[in-house]
């Protein structure tokens, strides 16, 4: 069964460089939790702190309520799946999976039985005698999962384990990991720079940047209501409009941008005159069909690309600003031509206003 992980004001400093700062959060027992962030954001450091390979420079990590200070990785009920999997190449598949049990001095017969069960769990029955090098990428992946699960960890940590796989296999393994997590009820802590992975698998996730947690929440909340400009631009694609907040109307606000005034949602209640950025997702922009919209912009089609289910259109606004919109393909001929003048629109609800000063961009 999974156990919860509490991080209290955790910081990690390497030679005056703070790789992780002020991380204060709680991961529920049995949760599939992801850390999402660009490379160098400190997510691997955080994982190594939780697994015990590093000791935090400040703060406390507790697993199942127990303070983990001074407890090494070999004494924690955690297991890690490494980015390169780190399977033992000189051992057979069965010996790899049984390694942790061997260390725990589990008798040979019981060990073999357990290894078979685990191979069953990861859908690889009968490959125990094979050499690691004879397996395919996806199979190695599963062996690494089985090896980590063999020691019955309460918390399983996964360090971008899918990054080496091809796209199709990666999608398949996402579903597999989620399935295994549900079956075993172990707390999964997953780190990735791939938001697709984080969104599809996680119960909750934290977006990290520069060693700090920018936002923590449910995938839909993070996508729809990013709390900082970093999250808004890192998670998903977005169009940005810079401008000064000129007028406040109930829950919405108007900012003056070079493109023109825009009606926006103002969840942080920014005051008049604030330098702000409006974030508009490409999929929330549509062609004007005569109906009244909060924001409508005359544009020219620049280029467009057909992606099967979607069509992504690059536009230029009246002031020459590039704008991306994405519409679903309904089979109709849209009569798209580069250079054609169109009107596009989006509602104020889909234009999220955030303060500029916190921006990393």
């Amino acid at each position, binding site marked *: 069964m999974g156990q919860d992980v509490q991080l209290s004001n955790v910081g990690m400093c390497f030679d005056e460089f703070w790789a992780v700062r002020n991380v204060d959060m709680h991961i529920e027992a049995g949760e599939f939790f992801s850390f999402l962030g660009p490379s160098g954001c400190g997510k691997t450091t955080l994982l190594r702190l939780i*697994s015990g*390979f590093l000791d935090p420079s400040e703060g406390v990590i507790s697993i199942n309520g127990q303070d983990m200070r001074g407890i090494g990785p070999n004494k924690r009920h955690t297991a*890690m799946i*490494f980015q390169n999997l*780190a399977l*033992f190449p000189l051992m057979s598949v069965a010996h790899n999976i049984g*390694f942790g049990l061997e*260390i725990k001095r589990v008798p040979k017969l019981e060990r073999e039985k357990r290894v078979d069960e685990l191979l069953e769990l990861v859908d690889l029955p009968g490959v125990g005698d094979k050499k690691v090098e004879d397996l395919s990428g996806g199979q190695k992946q599963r062996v690494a999962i089985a090896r980590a699960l063999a*020691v019955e960890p309460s918390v399983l940590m996964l360090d971008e384990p899918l990054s080496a796989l091809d796209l199709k296999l990666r999608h398949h393994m996402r579903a597999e990991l989620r399935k295994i997590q549900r079956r075993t009820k172990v707390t999964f802590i997953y780190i990735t720079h791939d938001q697709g992975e984080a969104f599809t698998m996680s119960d909750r996730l934290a977006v990290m940047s520069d060693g700090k947690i920018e936002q923590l929440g449910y995938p839909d909340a993070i996508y729809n209501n990013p709390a900082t400009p970093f999250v808004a631009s890192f998670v998903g694609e977005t169009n940005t409009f810079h401008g000064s907040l000129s007028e406040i109307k109930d829950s919405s606000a108007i900012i003056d941008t070079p493109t023109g005034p825009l009606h926006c949602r103002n969840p942080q209640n920014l005051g008049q005159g604030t330098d702000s950025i409006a974030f508009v997702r490409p999929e929330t922009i549509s062609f004007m069909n005569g109906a009244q919209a909060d924001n409508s912009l005359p544009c020219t089609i620049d280029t467009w690309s057909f992606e099967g289910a979607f069509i992504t259109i690059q536009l230029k606004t009246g002031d020459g600003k590039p704008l991306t919109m994405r519409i679903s393909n309904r089979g109709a001929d849209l009569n798209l031509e580069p250079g054609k003048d169109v009107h596009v629109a989006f509602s104020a609800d889909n234009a999220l206003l955030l303060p500029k000063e916190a921006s990393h961009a």
Partner: protein
Amino acid sequence: MRKVWNQAKHEFGPIGLAYVLIAVSVWMLVMVVAPQLIMLDFSLHPLLFPDEIGGPKDVWTLQNYEILFSNRLHMIIFLKTIWSSLLVTVFALVICYPISYYIAKVARGASVGWLMVGLIIPYWINELLRLFAWQIILADSGILNQAMLWIGIISEPLNFRAGNGAVILGMAYAYVLFMVFPLYNALESLDRNQVDAARDLGASWFRIHRRIVIPHAKPGIAIGCIMTFMLGAGTIAAPQLLGSPSSFWFTELIYTNFETANWNLGAAYATILALLCLVFMAIMLAVFRVSLKELSR
């Protein structure tokens, strides 16, 4: 074979290929094969007066080899050489394994370079000079005795060079590098994550080394042991400079035979020494289950 031939021809051109073939074969035949065969021939003939050579007594015989087994003293010296070389090998392995592991897997950045330089610098000095240095350190009135007397650990100078200890110490010192580099090479290629993975799965440091690190380093350990053993068994400088007058080593025995014009016995003993090294090599490869192919890794 044909493929290798064609590739070589393509690579070097006909003249280049001819040059390589001739140079390599001349080198092999003149410098390696011929002297060995001449030595072997010497060892299989009895010691004769010059006028008897070519005469009826000049026959092929194993009698030079038999002397080792009939002369008890020679046998003891031979066994002592094996034992000491083994001791030096084990000693070097025990010292070098942690050093190599530290340089290969623990140390980072510039400190790796400094450690390497620190290991290599002594080898800029000739082996004889280094052994002389040990002589100075270990002499009755040497640095070590002086220091220990001064601190007051001992009241009388110790005779470090009485037994074979000083020779073994000197050899271990002289050949440490030949153990460090193969080990370092092997350990360097070990994925750090494998060590972490084993640790994460609950393994103690001892287990990690036994199950993960040492199996990975096997080819390096085998090469290091073979080199150290061969150098140890074959050295003459260390026993001559650091050994006590009463102790005699197999290489000294060979040397004395050549010096006293009994080339035949010297050649036989030299051949035995070479065979010993081959046998040791075969044993190491078998023990570590390393194939010759793996050695080139």
